């Protein structure tokens, strides 16, 4: 089931450069939390620390704690690979595996891990995941065709199906609609609304209307200037954030006077 995430005093570094400073927040289970803020303010960097994808980049490290249901993801005995199976991720650009068919892409999390699965179980999981990503009806007749033959929006939903096929507790989305047209964006947003009943969802977006449409909570990140670390300015209910934010910077950003 969906899980709650507590972030405490989190500092994120690339080598000696401090990219994000002093983040404290609680991400509620079975809800959508949106991160907004200008480019380069550390939203994506912070998002990537929530499933330890951050440390894939050489020199990147983290101080502080990210606790899922009280378990610190950065504890010494925690396996980052196991973390990523619990906390799935969808990227900005759709990235289906070009050597795999649609069905193989959905099963990638199982197949690439050399886990055995009977054919019928596999077929069931493909159908279940593709239905979960609202893609089943569009691709059910061509499951053995390459995933890269789909449209951009379909590819992104395929990536979501691939992410939910490993049954994570949390789903992170890094600007999932920024490469998509409005119709595909709508399809993804509808999907997010359905998925939040089962998953904790965190979404980074540049589109403030999108944040307002899909999320329960919104977090605003900002950066004081080049070379400065990005900071969490404010996190609150989305309705409050967009009507009466506490911070002037948030209001300026949301009303378009800045950034």
């Amino acid at each position, binding site marked *: 089931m969906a899980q709650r995430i507590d972030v405490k005093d989190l500092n994120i570094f690339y080598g000696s450069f401090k990219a994000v400073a002093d983040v404290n927040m609680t991400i509620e289970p079975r809800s959508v939390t949106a991160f907004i803020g200008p480019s380069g303010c550390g939203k994506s960097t912070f998002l990537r620390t929530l499933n330890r994808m951050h440390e894939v980049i050489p020199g990147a490290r983290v101080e502080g704690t990210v606790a899922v249901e009280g378990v610190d993801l950065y504890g010494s005995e925690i396996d980052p690979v196991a973390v990523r199976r619990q906390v799935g991720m969808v990227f900005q650009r759709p*990235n289906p595996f070009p050597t795999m068919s649609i069905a193989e892409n959905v099963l990638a999390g199982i197949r690439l891990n050399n886990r055995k699965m009977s054919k019928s179980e596999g077929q069931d999981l493909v159908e279940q995941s593709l239905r979960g990503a609202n893609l089943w009806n569009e691709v059910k007749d061509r499951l053995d065709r390459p995933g890269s033959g789909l449209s951009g929006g379909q590819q992104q939903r395929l990536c979501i199906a691939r992410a939910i096929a490993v049954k994570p507790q949390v789903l992170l989305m890094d600007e999932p609609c920024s490469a998509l047209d409005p119709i595909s964006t709508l399809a993804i947003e509808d999907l997010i609304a359905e998925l939040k009943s089962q998953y904790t969802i965190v979404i980074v977006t540049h589109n403030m209307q999108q944040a307002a449409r899909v999320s329960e909570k919104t977090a605003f990140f900002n950066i004081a200037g080049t070379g400065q670390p990005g900071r969490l300015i404010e996190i609150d209910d989305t309705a409050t954030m967009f009507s009466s934010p506490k911070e002037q910077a948030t209001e300026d950003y949301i009303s378009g006077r800045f950034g």
Partner: protein
Amino acid sequence: MTTTTAPKPAPEGSASLRELLQTNDAKRRRTDVTMRVLITAAFVLAMLPLLSLTYTVVSQGIGRLDGYFLMNSMRGVFGGMDAGGIYHAIVGTLQITLFAALISVPIGLLTAIYLVEYGGGKPLAKTVTFLVDVMTGIPSIVAGLFAYALFALLLGPGAKFGFIGSVALSVLMIPVVIRSSEEMLRLVPNELREASLALGVPRWLTILKVVLRTSVAGLTTGVMLAIARVIGETAPLLLTVGVIDSINFNLFEGRMMTLPVYVYRQYAQGLVPCSADDAACIPDINIQRAWAAALTLFLIVMLLNLIGRLVTRWFAPKIR
């Protein structure tokens, strides 16, 4: 606006615009023609030796290239006898090159994986890259001397057998395999690695099943090119493997013949002095054998390339 009608008295503005748009820049046109001619000439010039070489090898070699030639060795063949073949040389070339590939491909591929996936600008990676660059420039005779000296240290001076040749060829092959594999692995988009890692796939499986699987077509091409690069080497093999007239299947004992060395040997022997009453004596038999062996080598390389292309086609990522 039609162009066929007689020129109507156009308004002032459009006339000046027409003139602007019709500007007949003679200098630009001249440069264009000159460059076109130069580029075409360069292409023809590059093609000429290639076509001439193909024509010469095929026309000179085809006469003697038959089943007998391919299936027999040079054992007991002397003078201007209408006999002898290259079976022993084909066996030698294929075995030695195969073993060179068996040594070079794992070393080269693993080094490339280290450089791309783990090196990340570390001092060791930079050193390896530098050494690979240096190795690329090693003259083949030096590689031969290296292998010869290495085995002279291990087994005493004068050791000559096929495997030493494989080692010498692998010294030439490894940098080519590293370089081409490195390029191919770098072409794999980082997004695919991240997609796989984010699914909870460990790094080694990501490299094995995503990075290598995506780039396998390019890797195969690189290996094929590396093989083509070493299969025609003569000097190091002459030094480390020697020459022999009979068939030797054992890579680890005794001298072996290889195709390039065979071509060199036959050509070096030159014309045979035939006595006038010996009708069976062919004066240029050695030259004929050399050309036929050269054609065989040519065909083997073509065949390898063909296989490489087929592999590339089978494994290439499909779009639809």
